[in-house]
Every structure is written in structure tokens, then in C-alpha cells.
């Protein structure tokens, strides 16, 4: 004990240094761990931008479902982290006509994939984890998922947490939970902004007048009309003076002039149109897209259009036709993806990167008929997702009748596919998987991601270079900082350390301090990341529209990097210890 108190007494002047070191390690560990996760997120982001193209696609012939399950198990035994989608696929042709029976697209060969997904969402009820079946799923401007409680009773409504497997879904964006006798529903919608709240308040109070500041002058104007849909407020304004600025303040709701899209006085009325908070709307859509993509494990079909052509039946060539031709050239160069989500209400939503957008652009109205192998489907375009910046779900939505579509497509076990998604697929794993799959089907055909999207490889490599360079840069900075600290330590305390050395206490103190700081950081970061995963996810979902998954592998790599660093510092310290000189130190 006395020995420890001696060491503590000598080192106590270094307390600030120890604290700073711990913080430094803490920050670095966090940067490294999150940095590695960012790499994974980036890969996912890249994939999402390309319609979920698998790292490896395998085509197989006539394999029963049972064997596919067996294959899935075997792939997981090779590498647990690999995600697998498997199912059946076939090629059909579709023809699209508008409501006047004009053919818009003729004999488009489409590849239909039926994916086997789970229909279960894990929920925590009264502290217990339960797997609940999705009873219905609705998606329009709002998202609504209804889960069947299967007779379970819920005492504490506030304890409900939505989980998938072992992770929690970070639900926000005005997510509402409805607990009913037999069902539990999650409903998300975008949050109201101040304009919505103002209109709601006017409605609620049945206000006839509104106090406003016109060019900084306070006045009270009669409300003529409130148009919620177009976010417009019409006020009586008999003054002939043009208004440049308006400020509205009603019971804590403040709408400055910057929230106004247009301000006009016309015919005794002042018409105020408010801007829409597109950022909020955009965030909401990306959030929904993320939930749809990751958490709604529902029956889904992927229809891939190979090539399609617009009809040339019409003689008359107008500017629209010229445009069509141009589009045709472009479209034929593309491999389009149609992503379809089927709903229990009998509809199926098909989202398309190009098709619906082009149909819209070419002046097609909302409703049209889609014919697939001679069977007609009524479809309507929902222009919900037509925002250019969207990456994940930048698609318009077509709605079909699900049951008819499924029946008529007659999907069976004829052709199988296995899509393999991995964070990194090294050559050894790839060879193992190929070898195993070939034992099931000698004709198995393999397509790797880079054959479909040649640009994805260079992008990944570029990102890897950035991640590695950044890590090395941070590592370098830390190394220099630590080297300076080490030099300072040995010059400030040379006499004390040399005296201790004289009496046999020759220990690498700086390495001890580093190791203690490192251990404290490692433990605290582990607990923060592990137990605050939900909070981190909420933040990630709110600002980055994606989730953070604690990955012990990434965490371990970060630990190894820092441990190597401590080891290097230790060797440098050994050199400093050897040079300790009592005579010089004093």
C-alpha cells in the first residue's frame, strides 16, 4: 500500500494528463468504432441506391423450398453475417395502356421474383418479448402496421417497444401507438409544423379575427378563408398600400415572414401562402422508406423490367412522341427495377425508379391499365415519392390488385434464386459458397455485384481508401500527441523516476496510465454503445435515416488498433526508461 501511495504521490501531478488521456482514448474509440460502422452503412447506402443488388446472385433450377432452406443454413454456417434472400423467379411480359386504351408500353419482359420474408415483428410487452404477426399493413401518406395480439393482454401501455429480432426500431416522426382489444397498431405520419398548428388553432377556437404585424405595424384583420391543403390564409385587407412583410403571433405560434411563400393584396383581401417544410416531409419519407426496407418483413415481389418499348401504333407524331422516342432510347439502355409491396387489403404497390416517373412525365394520367401476359390490372400512379434527392425510395408508386396479380402470375418452384448480401465477400468465402451450391445444382449460375454495377467496386475501394486514410491520419495525430506527452513526462519527472529506478522501481508508468485510460474507455464505450443502442438509433434515424448496429467485430478491431498503439508507445517508453539519468535529471 505504501508503495502505491508513493507512486500516487509522484504521479498526482499527472492527474489532469490521465483525465485528458482517458477522454482522448474515449473519443478515439468512439471515432474508430463508429467509423467502421459508417463503412458498413455506406455499403448499405450504395446498395440501396441500386435497387438492392445482391453481392452475389445465384440462379438455380428446380430446387424445392426445403433444399433452399438447407442451403440458407449452410451459407450461415460459412459466415453468420451473410444475409440471404431466396425464392422463385420467372420472366413475364407486360403491356401498359392508358384509360383511352392507347398502348403505352408493349411486351415489356419483366422478371418476377417472389421473396420469402417473415411476417413477424418482435414487440416488447410488459417487459416480455413477443413475436406478433402482421395482420395488416397499409401504406399511403401514412404508414400503418396492425399486429395481431393473439389474445395477449397488455397492462402497461407505455412499456411497448417495437423490436425486430434483437434490435429496437427507433420510431419517431409522430409515431402513434394504438392498443386495442385484439390488435396493436403503429402509425407514423409526419409531424405538424407551425403552419398546421396555426390553422388547427384557428379552427379550434373558431376565430374570426387574427392579430398580425404588417410591415411591423400591429393590426387586427378578419379571417376570410383558411385553406389547409394549399396552406393559404385569406384575410380582409381594405388598405391599398402594398404589404411587404407579415408576422403572425398567436398563442406561442410564431410565423415570421421567412415562412411565407407569397404575400399578395388583391381586391380587398390579403392572401398569405405559407411554405411547406419540405425538409420535414423529406425526412419523413426517408424514414418510412427505411422502415419499409428494413423492418416490414412482408411478402414482396421484385419485378425487374428487362427492356420495354412504347407502342408505335399511332400515326400522328407530336412533340410528345418525339419526347417518347428520346425516352425510349434512354429506357432501353436501362435495366429498370420494379419493387412491389403487397398489402393485405388486396392491393400491391409497385415502386419504380423510372417507369412511373416516365409515364407521368409523358403526360399519362393517374389511372391506366397494365397487362401482364394477357391479364389486365388497373393501376394508378401515386406521386408520393417523386423527390429528386431521394436515394432509397426515389420511386413512384403504382397500385395493383394483389390477389389477381399473384394468381395470374402463378408463381411456383420452377426457377430459384438466392441473393447473397455480405458486408465483404472474400474470395475464400465465395469459393466455399460456390462449391456448396454447385453440389445442389450443376448448372448454378453466379453473378457478382460488380458485373451488374461496375461502378460499385471503385466506389467501395475509394471509400475504403478514405476510411483507412482518415484512420491513419487520426492515428498519426494521436501518436504525435502521445509522443509529446511521453517526452514531457520523462523530462519533468526525470529525477524522481531515476531515483525510483535507483531503488528498483523501474516501470513503464506512461504505459500503465495509457492502459488504465484505455481500459476505462473500452468498458465505458462498450456499455454506452451496447445499452444506449436505442438512443443512438433514434439519433441516427432522425438525422441520418439509418440505424447504428453495435458490431462486436468493429469494436474489437478498434480495440486492437488502440492496443497496437499502446504497444508502440510502450517500446518508445522503454527507450526513455533506459536513458533515465539521475545526474542529468537533477
Amino acid at each position: 500500500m505504501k508503495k502505491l501511495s508513493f507512486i500516487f504521490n509522484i504521479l498526482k501531478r499527472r492527474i489532469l494528463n490521465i483525465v485528458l488521456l482517458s477522454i482522448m482514448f474515449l473519443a478515439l474509440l468512439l471515432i474508430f468504432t463508429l467509423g467502421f460502422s459508417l463503412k458498413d452503412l455506406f455499403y448499405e447506402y450504395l446498395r440501396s441506391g441500386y435497387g438492392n443488388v445482391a453481392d452475389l446472385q445465384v440462379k438455380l433450377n428446380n430446387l424445392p423450398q426445403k433444399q433452399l432452406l438447407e442451403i440458407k443454413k449452410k451459407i450461415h454456417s460459412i459466415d453468420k453475417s451473410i444475409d440471404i434472400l431466396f425464392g422463385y423467379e420467372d420472366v413475364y411480359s407486360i403491356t401498359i395502356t392508358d384509360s383511352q386504351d392507347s398502348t403505352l408500353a408493349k411486351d415489356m419482359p419483366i422478371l418476377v421474383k417472389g421473396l420469402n420474408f417473415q411476417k413477424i415483428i418482435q414487440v416488447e410487452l410488459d417487459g416480455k418479448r413477443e413475436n406478433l404477426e402482421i395482420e395488416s399493413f397499409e401504406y399511403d401518406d401514412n404508414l400503418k402496421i396492425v399486429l395481431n395480439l393473439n389474445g395477449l393482454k397488455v397492462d402497461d401501455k407505455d412499456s411497448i417497444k417495437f423490436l425486430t429480432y434483437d434490435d429496437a426500431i427507433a420510431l419517431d416522426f409522430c409515431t402513434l401507438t394504438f392498443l386495442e382489444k385484439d390488435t396493436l397498431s403503429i402509425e407514423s405520419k409526419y409531424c405538424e409544423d407551425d403552419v398546421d398548428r396555426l390553422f388547427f388553432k384557428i379552427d379550434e377556437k373558431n376565430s374570426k379575427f387574427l392579430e398580425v404585424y404588417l410591415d411591423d405595424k400591429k393590426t387586427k384583420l378578419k379571417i376570410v378563408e383558411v385553406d389547409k391543403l394549399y396552406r393559404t390564409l385569406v384575410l380582409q385587407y381594405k388598405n391599398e398600400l402594398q404589404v411587404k412583410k407579415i408576422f403572425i403571433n398567436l398563442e406561442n405560434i410564431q410565423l415570421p415572414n421567412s415562412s411565407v411563400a407569397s404575400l399578395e393584396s388583391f381586391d380587398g383581401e390579403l392572401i398569405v401562402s405559407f411554405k411547406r417544410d419540405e425538409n420535414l416531409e423529406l425526412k419523413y419519407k426517408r424514414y418510412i422508406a427505411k422502415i419499409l426496407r428494413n423492418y416490414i418483413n412482408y411478402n414482396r415481389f421484385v419485378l425487374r423490367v428487362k427492356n420495354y418499348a412504347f407502342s408505335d401504333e399511332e400515326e400522328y407524331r407530336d412533340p410528345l412522341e418525339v419526347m417518347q422516342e428520346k425516352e425510349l432510347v434512354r429506357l432501353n439502355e436501362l435495366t429498370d427495377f420494379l419493387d412491389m409491396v403487397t398489402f393485405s387489403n388486396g392491393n400491391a404497390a409497385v415502386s419504380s425508379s423510372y417507369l412511373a416517373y416516365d409515364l407521368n412525365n409523358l403526360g399519362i394520367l393517374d389511372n391506366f391499365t397494365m397487362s401482364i401476359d394477357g391479364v389486365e390490372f388497373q393501376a394508378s400512379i401515386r406521386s408520393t415519392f417523386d423527390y429528386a434527392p431521394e436515394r432509397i425510395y426515389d420511386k413512384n408508386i403504382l397500385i395493383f390488385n394483389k390477389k389477381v396479380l399473384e394468381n395470374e402470375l402463378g408463381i411456383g418452384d420452377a426457377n430459384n434464386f438466392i441473393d447473397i448480401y455480405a458486408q465483404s465477400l472474400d474470395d475464400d468465402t465465395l469459393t466455399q459458397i460456390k462449391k456448396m451450391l454447385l453440389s445442389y445444382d450443376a448448372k448454378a449460375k453466379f453473378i457478382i455485384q460488380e458485373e451488374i454495377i461496375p461502378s460499385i467496386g471503385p466506389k467501395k475501394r475509394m471509400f475504403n481508401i478514405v476510411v483507412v486514410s482518415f484512420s491513419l491520419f487520426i492515428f498519426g495525430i494521436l501518436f504525435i500527441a502521445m509522443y509529446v506527452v511521453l517526452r514531457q513526462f520523462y523530462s519533468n519527472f526525470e529525477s524522481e523516476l531515476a531515483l525510483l529506478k535507483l531503488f528498483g522501481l523501474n516501470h513503464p508508468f506512461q504505459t500503465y496510465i495509457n492502459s488504465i485510460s484505455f481500459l476505462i474507455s473500452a468498458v465505458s464505450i462498450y456499455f454506452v454503445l451496447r445499452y444506449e443502442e436505442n438512443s443512438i438509433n433514434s439519433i441516427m434515424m432522425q438525422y441520418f435515416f439509418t440505424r447504428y448496429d453495435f458490431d462486436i467485430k468493429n469494436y474489437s478491431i478498434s480495440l486492437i488498433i488502440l492496443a497496437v498503439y499502446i504497444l508502440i508507445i510502450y517500446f518508445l517508453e522503454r527507450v526513455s526508461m533506459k536513458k533515465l539519468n539521475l545526474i542529468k535529471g537533477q
Partner: protein
Amino acid sequence: MALECRDVSFSFVDNAGVEKQILKNMSFKLDKNQIKLVYGHIGAGKSTLIYLLAGLLDDFEGEIDWDDYHFTNISPKLDKIRSKYMSINFSNFFYLKDMNVEDNIMFPAVFSKKKKSYIDERLEMMYETFSDIQLSDTEVFNLKNFRNKKIGTMSNGQREIVMLARMLMNDSKYILADEMLRSFNTNVKKQMLEILFDKFHLGTANSALIITHDDKMLEYMKEYSKGRVDITAYDFIDKTLKERV
């Protein structure tokens, strides 16, 4: 069994880049129950001899023995075993300036893994021995009264008493003392020698190499050892030691 160096040479390059030879082919042996006094002018190599024997100087030529432990260059092992063989008193003291007197006295014992009971007992002995030291006609020094005082705030004379206590704390076989008792007047010096010979049996319970500038030290030592100890004086001449006849 002795503290011994054979054919030792040591040189260093000074700030001007000139190589300076300090010791040349020097041999020296400190046997059991001996006191050896070493005289020499400033820069003759007296302190270097102590650092060398203590295994604190690198890049020397020759051989050194600590009893049966033989070495020709320094290694971390020397740090671990040094306190088993010797106690050292440096000319410029070297102490832990942020610590108090008691900590400074006891820390060689603490790091030599001595038992707590030994440390407490020995510490008490130090307080008892270094008490009522008559520094002047009016001033009396009691080590115990300073036990909690920061050593950095003490006078040189007071500090040397602390350093003597630290040197004696481990009851070592060999004592290496550089310019021992240099801060004291003749009166205090004599009191200290009386303590060293009567209480700590200098030269009979241990062996000592004492570096000094004080011409009368040999005479004082002979007087206070009362002829019981083999005391030899040496002079540094031409980078080596010559026994004084």
C-alpha cells in the same frame, strides 16, 4: 565477497565535443568491514567512481563485482538488486521534493520490500538517533519534529541529516557516500561520526566508501572508530587511485 571494479576506464564527450577520460584502467576493492576514504581535486573522478560502482553509468570498460554478481555493462536487473547490496548518499542529495521527510527516509526500505514492522522499527530508531543534535549553541535539531515537513523547504544541513537517515534505513552491506557530512561544521560533523560509529557500527557491521574533500576526515574517523576499524585513504592521481601512505 567484496564490492570491486577491475581495469575500469570511463570517458565521456563534453558539450564542446571533446572526449574526456575520467578513469583509466583503475581497480578498486571494498572488502568486508573496511572503510575507504577517497580524496581528490574537483573533477578528478571521485563521484564517477561511486556512480560506476553503483551501476549507474553506461559505456564503461572493465568489470564490476557486487559480491558474486558480476557485470560488464548496466542492465535493468541492476536496478532490481542494487538495494540488496548498497546504500548511496549522493553529494547533491537527490530527494523526492514533493514528499515529506518521513517518506524520503523510508522509501528505499519500501522499495526494497522490507516488512512494515522493520520499516516502523527502523524509522523509530532514526528518530531516536538523530535527536538532540546540537547544531549551534542555541539550536537543537530533532529529526522527528520534521517528519511531516516537505524536504524541499529545509536547509542544506537539515536535509543532509535526512539523507544520512535514508542511507542508513536499509542497513546495507555497502555504503557509498559522496562528500559525506559536507554541510556540517566540525562540531556537528563529530556528533554525526559518533552516531555512525556507535549506533550504526560503520566499518564493522558494514563497509563504506567515503568520498571527501575534508583533510581532517581521516583523523576524525580514526578518533571516533576508536581503532576498531580498518580505515584506508586513497588519492586520485592520473585517473586512478593510489593508496595514501
